[in-house]
């Protein structure tokens, strides 16, 4: 018997001489991890329940709407109307997922592990924001794709097909607006506390508390006030932009009057403001 046969080889510590990738890869690692976290992937079964319940609801709704549209072409259920229908579900999704993405890191003290690596503080916030926005956009966009496929395959001719293409495009863009605004607000609120329950409550509160303002404004005697009312709550704000850009099913754009561009500007301003505050927040967190 050879001597080597009886020896257990401890290969010991191996140095790593392979590539070390740069900023883009590090960012995408954070982004992909965030996106997986949003849907509970790589985590416990309990963490998967809520996201996949929401996924189930949006796809069920999308499928039903697709069926309705196939039966009754003039029912008025457009792609953008689907997004509006899902508004409150998305609020709850953001309220649950945003704290999972950022409050958990604050609470568990993981940030020092991130910031002692070649990950920039700004990239941390951007990656989390991009992950949440993508998750919301997928929730609102993927069922639209289902609706589109059903409509496209049941289209009688090419012109009907192109009409559908012309409708789903704005629908997906509208979904992206929602995603950017909701993710921005949700993540900013969640980044303020390490307690997930507080963060979730705070996010829902932002959306709930602002709704009465819209209600009061819209019954004021001034028509200008009424037309500006929708500016004051995140969900009605995007709704206003959608109304201006794509119109509603019944062609009604009276409720925002001539202020369409203002609605879009405010939406962009709010998103930019959230991003700026989020960055300021992480500059503070990282140096503490």
């Amino acid at each position: 018997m050879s001597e080597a046969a009886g020896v257990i080889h401890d290969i010991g510590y191996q140095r790593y001489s392979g590539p070390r990738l740069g900023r883009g890869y590090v960012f995408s690692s954070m982004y992909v991890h965030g996106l997986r976290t949003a849907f509970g992937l790589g985590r416990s079964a309990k963490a998967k329940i809520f996201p996949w319940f929401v996924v189930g609801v949006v796809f069920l709704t999308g499928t039903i709407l697709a069926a309705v549209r196939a039966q009754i072409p003039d029912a008025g259920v457009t792609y953008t109307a689907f997004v509006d229908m899902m508004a409150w579900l998305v609020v709850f999704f953001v309220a649950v997922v945003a704290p999972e993405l950022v409050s958990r890191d604050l609470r568990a003290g993981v940030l020092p592990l991130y910031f002692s690596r070649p990950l920039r503080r700004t990239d941390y916030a951007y990656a989390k924001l991009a992950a949440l926005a993508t998750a919301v956009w997928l929730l609102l966009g993927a069922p639209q794709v289902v609706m589109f496929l059903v409509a496209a395959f049941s289209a009688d001719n090419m012109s009907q097909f192109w009409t559908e293409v012309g409708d789903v495009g704005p629908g997906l863009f509208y979904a992206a607006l929602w995603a950017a605004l909701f993710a921005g607000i949700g993540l900013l609120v969640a980044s303020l506390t390490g307690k997930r329950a507080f963060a979730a409550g705070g996010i829902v509160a932002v959306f709930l508390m602002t709704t009465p303002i819209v209600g009061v404004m819209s019954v004021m005697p001034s028509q200008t006030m009424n037309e500006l009312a929708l500016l004051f709550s995140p969900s009605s704000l995007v709704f206003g932009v959608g109304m201006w850009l794509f119109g509603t099913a019944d062609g009604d754009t009276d409720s925002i009057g001539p202020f369409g561009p203002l609605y879009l500007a405010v939406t962009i301003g709010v998103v930019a403001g959230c991003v700026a505050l989020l960055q300021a927040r992480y500059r503070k967190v990282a140096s503490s």
Partner: protein
Amino acid sequence: MTALSDLTVSVQPGIVGLVGANGAGKSTLIKILLGLLAPTSGRVRVLDLDPTVDAAAVRARVGYMPEHESLSPDLSAAEFVTHLGRVSGLPRTAARERASEALRHVGLYEERYRQIGGYSTGMKQRVKLAQALVHDPDLLLLDEPTNGLDPAGRDAMLALIHRIGNEFGISVVVCSHLLGEVERICDSLVAIDGGRLLRSDNISAMTTVTDVLAVEVSEGIDQLAARLDLLGLPSRRDGRLLLVPLEDDATYDRILSAVAELDLPLHRLDQRRHRVAELFATREVTHV
């Protein structure tokens, strides 16, 4: 507030102990080394890089184990360490392989697919060490690595750190407020207090001067001190004792004859084996 001032120290590869009481400035020093804080004045070089300029390059080659709890409880150790490996720039496959390796080296191979939330304190400390090792750093910064461990856990952690410093070819800086621990594994020690350097030296250089003779006489202590000075034996007052460095066996005889010549009543003459801790403590006193 100044956490660190007039601290000039350079350390050689190997295991370096950074000791000081809580609040001495150890964590601030680590943050500066990682480029997370910029020093208000002065110069830092880590692995021949300047962390204030090249923070990402420094952090890619440094592993950091923070003092406080810093793990995501809802992830498995394998998932968590892999993710952090990717954030350090390791490609996907390499990150997974090295995460398994790092967890094997810290003794968590079997448990690596369990959620971290269910781990004991000792296991969590090991995960923290594994995440600092995953990207094969050239320098490890360990902040209170034995925090919260029982005596057996402490011994195991110290043995592991010793192995990393001596067999893995990685330089290690161990921060601790417990001198007794670090002096067992370190090649050199840096002691700071109130942000100032107390002493920085090789541990062997320190232990050679730690043997002193304690002389107690009931009167004439100043006389004796003066006489010993004449004989080339520098002594130091410590309460009612005179402490004299023990150079060789002849030191005993020279002290005894000095006492006999002065005709002083000798109470006690014995050898004290100073721990490094006492060495630092006495130096501190002499500076005040």
